[in-house]
């Protein structure tokens, strides 16, 4: 068990473990036997290992959900819902700024410099970035573009959506916590029956 000490500490501290955030720990967590061992350890702490549908990320869940846990989960859920729009807008902004096909996915590398160079000569992007950065979730107080971008990356790092492999180098890697966020969005859509369609319209196929 001792070799899992640092991993357990990270899990207990609320970290999401994925192949990007900690590859070796993630490989160990993919092993059934290791997961069982960790679960036995976590039982007296009323916690268990949990993962998302794709199994791309591991985190701790309550084993038994008591009143205390419900209160905590309610608060957490409210926080997540409040941060949902800024997070989704950030995902869209990344896609558009970098001219990508899909959303930022685990393992993608993002550089703040790319965001500043592309929004410098695009007023539309510049304004959206500013609106996003000054949203209470990102909380930038600056009027400088670079400082705003820095703040956005900083907050995403704090929330575990981005990883900065070298503290002195300005590039970030998207973690699989983003998968969790997308799962949650899909879950809310399904639970609340929101009129959001994620399938391509059939006409696109019939054109073939």
């Amino acid at each position, binding site marked *: 068990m001792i070799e899992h000490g*640092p991993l*357990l*500490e*990270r899990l*207990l*501290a*609320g970290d999401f473990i994925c192949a990007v955030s900690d590859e070796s720990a993630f490989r160990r967590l993919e092993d059934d036997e290791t997961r069982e061992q960790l679960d036995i350890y976590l039982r007296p*702490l*009323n*916690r268990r290992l*949990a993962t998302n549908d794709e199994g791309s990320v591991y*985190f*701790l*869940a*309550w084993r038994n*959900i008591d009143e205390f*846990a*419900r209160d*905590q*989960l*309610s608060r*957490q*859920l409210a926080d997540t*819902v409040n941060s*949902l*729009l800024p997070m*989704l*807008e950030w*995902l*869209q902004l990344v*896609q558009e700024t970098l001219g990508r*096909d*899909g*959303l930022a996915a685990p393992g993608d590398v993002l550089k703040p410099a790319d965001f500043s160079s592309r929004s410098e000569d695009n007023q539309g992007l510049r304004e959206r970035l500013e609106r996003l950065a000054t949203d*209470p979730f990102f*909380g930038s*107080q*600056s009027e400088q573009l670079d400082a705003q971008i820095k703040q956005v990356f*900083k907050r995403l790092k*704090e929330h575990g959506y981005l990883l900065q492999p070298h503290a002195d180098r300005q590039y970030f890697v998207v973690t699989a916590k983003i998968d*969790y966020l*997308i*799962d*949650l*969005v899909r*879950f*809310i*859509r399904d*639970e*609340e029956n*929101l*009129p*959001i*369609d*994620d*399938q*391509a319209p059939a006409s*696109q196929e019939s*054109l*073939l």
Partner: protein
Amino acid sequence: MMGGASDPHALESRLISTGVERLTLLGKYAEALMAGYARDEVPLAGLSKTALNRLLAARILWRPDEQGGVKLAPKVRELIAEMLADETRRHVNADVAETLELLRSLVQSYREARDAGEYWRQEQQLLRLRQEVDDLNGRFADAIDSLWRRLNSDFGFVSHLGDKIRENERAQKQIVRLLDGLELIDFTELIELVGGDGALRKLLVSGLQHQLTQHYTSLREVQRRMIELLARFRQQQSRSRLVAGMAAFLREHPGFAPGNYARRSEVPALVNRAALLSAAGAPALDHDADTRILTGLLHRLPRPVPRPEPVTAAGVAALQENTLAATRHQALKEDVERFYLSVVDGGGEPLSALEYLQQGEFEWGEEIWLFQVIAEHQGLPRGEQRAFRLRQEESQASPFNHLRLIHDVIIQLS
């Protein structure tokens, strides 16, 4: 005796010389031909009338209708696409059925030549057979190469996800056609066809079987990977649409709040994320071995440097320093109060303590400033404290302890 025209050697050498002559045309007019490949028509500006006629005679170019311009012949276009591995225009075409027909008739001719003892004709038929088998193999190998290239580049030659999905689906249909083509080759029939002839058997049965098995394996593998890639494309597409849809919904419905899933009898697994728990530790002296380690650590702590104080001046200097410190502290306190007042003046909008500090050109260090802003907030009477909302910008110093570093403090009116 055979006449000159029907002399097979003479025929061969005439074919060769014409072929060389026509292949040379490809090199000689390469630029005009490539311009025709890139655009719709071949530009006639640089071509003389004779040159054009020779290119038409060699079927390198053709004229679809009398009024229209001159275009590359489809085979030449394909040849260029193959040479450039240009995946947007490369054709995948194994044409197995026709090749099989040809193989059957070539085997018949070969047999007749053998039975008639015409060795040269027999050799020629065997050569043609070998070329046809090579061609068939080459077509499969090319098609498979083209499929792998498209797969490995994630269909990078088209930029939109929708186009990638369509290209992937097209590639999958090609794979199915290629696999259907392989199905057409019936080795029982081929074994019967070649009979006891060793050379034919080696070419059409053992050799071909070996190569086709490899093609089959490759095609199955590329098919599997194409399906995976398509699933990934579709997942990407569905994620983008989901995020765009949800963002639009939330913008239109600012007051939207989903149900509190944490209050359900069955809490959905996805929202069950346990509160964080820190594994704290403190030095303990109840283990001998640990005591030694701790002693070692203690010895390695940096020693405080004792500052000699001149005894005689101690009384007055201390007093002066104290008064100075008190004055400075008062000034700091007043500056912080002014910061709180600016929050009120600013209509209660969030204001960063650090930015205020930097803009105001104060002489205070950042750390001392933030400390005083927090202290001021804590020192306010209850009612006033509630009026100001204080948010600390902080981060965890290290994943292994719960020391949090405060980078900035934001104050706003509640």
